[in-house]
């Protein structure tokens, strides 16, 4: 955060163009996911993969184009805290699902 002394305003919004790019990419990724599920064009396993891939891609798009998260010095702590949170979430969600499904199978 220290590095950002150049602007006159605490607002670090991107340009209208970056919002437009993020908007179009989000629309396309949402349309792919909903379209494939509604038409039922793929097998079950392939659908699960495509839905999750579209979700991850859209999250990355919105972090990049709406939250303006990048590898700049100004965003260093934002990015580090986000990566740490993802690690915690991985333990939380992955661990819960692993343990509970394993118990379910044993009962």
């Amino acid at each position: 955060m220290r590095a950002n002394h150049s602007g006159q305003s605490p607002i670090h919004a991107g340009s209208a163009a970056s919002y437009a790019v993020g908007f179009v990419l989000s629309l396309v990724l949402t349309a792919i996911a909903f379209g494939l599920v509604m038409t039922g064009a793929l097998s079950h396993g392939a659908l699960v993969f495509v839905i999750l891939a579209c979700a991850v891609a859209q999250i990355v798009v919105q972090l990049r184009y709406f939250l303006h998260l990048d590898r700049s010095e100004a965003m260093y702590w934002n990015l580090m805290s986000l990566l740490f949170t993802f690690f915690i979430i991985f333990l939380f969600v992955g661990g819960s699902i692993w343990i509970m499904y394993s118990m379910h199978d044993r009962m």
Partner: protein
Amino acid sequence: MTATEAILSQHDPARDPARDLARAPAHAHDAEDVRTLGFWLYLMSDLVIFAGLFATYVVLSRNFAGGPTPKDLFDLPYVLTETAFLLCASVVYGLGLIAARNGERPKLLLCLTASFLLGLCFVSMEIGEFALMIREGAGPDRSGFLSGFFTLVGTHGAHVCFGMLWMAVMMVQTLSKGLTAPVRGRLMRLGLFWHFLDIVWIALFSVVYLLGVI
């Protein structure tokens, strides 16, 4: 400074912070930057709350107790419309932030109003969906799956409601105080919150609705 020190300081952006503070003029927005980072850390803790609710939902998602399943309950075109409203609310707010940065107050107020109304459409549709499910006997008390569903989706909806409340407060502050540094800082943090809620919704419609019906 010796040549070695010069090279070291060039390669280490985190060099002596006290020296940097002494050199930098004291801008009012430095405090706003610190507040924005603090708010970001709150968002990260909120993300952990959502992760816990996601884990609970996924664990309970096949416990129907003989009741309705996602295939019986979820209407994908309806959810797609909700998704479109929330995405548009997020983008319109971003355009409002650009207007705020450029000091264009009327344009900012227009964007805030539009974003508020799009958020209202989203929340109204969600309340309509909940009300219909409860009338059909598929309330949160029907099965483990429905308890998890209402807790997760309802928590997100409550966040959107608080975002709208905050947005209404910012409309009043923009009118009464003008675009002062603290008001701009608050608009920036509300933007983070609002975009963050759209990101949580991506995970939500993918995991709950799309993976639910296939």
